[in-house]
């Protein structure tokens, strides 16, 4: 099946703000129902949340600029050729802080954040499960085991993209901020020095394997990202489940951006090694434009899941802590376990925050809710064929 036809699909692709009252301009994909509903009366994100988010964005941006100035030894080590990248990271910092603040202002996220951190810093957690957090970080954030349960191919492709992007970020961010400097007396051969904030960290021979790895770190990252992103792009064109409901701006653009960044990055190396710099300037501009676009896109599109995903660890820790105390909550009707007691109480609190006046229903398992509704329909509304 290809793209849905224009007419029926159009409403879905149009700005859903009208329906959900989601924060305008925050995200092309999600209409942020949680945030939206908190603000449904106004139809927009409350002014106070917007103001707080903007303030958070400004503070984080200013802190980053200060870190750039100080880390580059008062711009002494700052490479002006990388200025567009550095400016983009400041926009990125603003966007992430803004979006993050809006996100955690919604009742569901705010409560989860509070309970997650509360679990982490509880004395009980340190005493009973001191290794739980590192294990969960490795499982959910590092190795992303849950993706393997969805599909091994998706897990492998995502791991390639994930570690490739981590590697690229560890190299490029400090470089663009002027935190890294590489110096050599001779320009090649022994005596190369890597410095961070002006302090010597590593001395190496630029012609040995370490030197090769240091200078080709971004090429290695690109070689990892390209097959991963290509697999997902192929999947978005072939997998019927993935195609259902996908949108170009939300699902395709991020993959295309990763591929363009990686391919142009590799071509820059190819140009300098084999073409004597032929086409280098054009490629450099294309590479820069794609990177800047991607950095600015991160807070407002699919890549925002990078920022959100750690919430999975907080949620797991919260539930894990409850299970340690054997606080399992059973369905009031069938006594099948629903979740931990603190989790159910937290959910009921979220529902009360949202003025969902049926939070007591959370104490029944899904099947019992359906059966009771069916029984009520049968006895009070309609029985049999008519």
């Amino acid at each position, binding site marked *: *099946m290809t793209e*849905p036809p224009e007419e*029926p699909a159009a409403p*879905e692709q*149009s*700005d*859903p703000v009208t*329906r*959900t009252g989601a924060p305008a301009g925050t995200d092309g994909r*999600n209409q*942020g*129902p*949680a*945030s*939206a509903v908190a603000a449904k009366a106004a139809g927009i994100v409350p002014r106070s949340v917007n103001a707080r988010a903007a303030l958070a964005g400004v503070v984080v941006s200013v802190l980053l600029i200060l870190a750039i100035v100080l880390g580059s030894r008062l711009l002494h080590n700052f490479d002006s050729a990388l200025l567009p990248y550095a400016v983009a990271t400041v926009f990125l910092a603003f966007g992430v802080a803004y979006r993050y603040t809006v996100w955690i202002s919604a*009742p*569901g*996220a705010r409560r*989860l954040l509070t309970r997650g951190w509360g679990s982490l810093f509880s004395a009980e957690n340190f005493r009973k499960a001191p290794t739980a957090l590192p294990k969960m970080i490795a499982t959910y954030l590092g190795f992303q085991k*849950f993706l393997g*349960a*969805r599909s091994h191919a998706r897990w492998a492709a995502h791991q390639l993209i994930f570690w490739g992007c981590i590697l690229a970020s560890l190299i490029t961010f400090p470089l663009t901020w002027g935190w890294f400097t590489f110096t050599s007396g001779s320009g090649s051969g022994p005596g190369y020095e890597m410095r961070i904030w002006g302090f010597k960290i590593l001395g190496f021979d630029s012609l040995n394997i370490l030197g090769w790895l240091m200078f080709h770190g971004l090429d290695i990252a690109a070689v990892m990202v390209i097959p991963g992103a290509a697999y997902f792009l192929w999947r978005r064109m072939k997998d019927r*489940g993935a195609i*259902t*409901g996908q949108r170009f701006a939300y699902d395709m653009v991020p993959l295309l951006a990763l591929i363009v960044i990686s391919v142009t990055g590799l071509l820059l190396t190819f140009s300098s090694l084999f073409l004597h710099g032929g086409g280098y300037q054009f490629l450099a501009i294309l590479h820069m434009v794609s990177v800047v676009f991607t950095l600015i896109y991160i807070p407002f599109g699919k890549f925002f*899941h990078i920022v*959100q995903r750690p*919430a*999975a660890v907080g*949620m797991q820790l919260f539930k894990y802590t409850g299970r340690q105390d054997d606080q399992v909550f059973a369905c*009031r*009707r069938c006594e099948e376990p629903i979740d931990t007691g603190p989790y159910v109480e937290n*959910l009921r609190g*979220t*529902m009360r925050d*949202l003025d*969902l*006046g*049926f939070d*007591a*229903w*959370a104490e*029944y398992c*899904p*099947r019992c*809710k*359906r*059966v*009771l*509704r*069916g*029984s*009520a*329909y*049968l006895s009070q*509304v*309609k*029985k*049999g064929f*008519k």
Partner: protein
Amino acid sequence: MMGRTIFIDPGRCIGCQACVSACRECDSHRGKSMIHLDYTDEGSSVASLPTVCMHCEDPVAPCAEVCPADAILVTADGVVQQADTTRCIGCANCVNACPFGVPKIDLQAKLQMKCNLCYDRTAYGLAPMCATVCPTGALFYGTLEELQAERPGVQVADTFVFGESEVRTGVAMVVPADRVQWPVPGGLPVVEINGKDVRR
């Protein structure tokens, strides 16, 4: 009132599971059925109830409202879609907050899934898989006028009572014509049905 949607008539359901089988063919969750078919008074009655996502309109999608990861999309045409795979953290808030007991969760994959109103089909004007195969019309897809043309004298209710709250939905249930103004009971807190305590 409402446009093309699903109308559920439990009185016609014979519990044949055809909808459950057909639901597996929906592309958005291929191979897994998202329909619940419950036998509400098993052992005493053959009554059964098919449950699809009711696509709540007011309050809009409680599942999405309680989601801490902003993962559940509500499209402009009123379809509450299953969780975005990149965002869903598998917390099960949606599962336990839904008053209709609809969303399912895969705890290994950390992923919520639910009925998407066969968005791959309804976006093209086709009926959802469940309504296509239902042999008795317990699941009917179309407009209210089309339903009434086929079944003179029926009315539908799109409002459900849960305690002191009402939930208006995009999917409706068939009710006797003289009770159309009466919102459908959500089921809780029900203490007794036919003299039997149903709380336990």
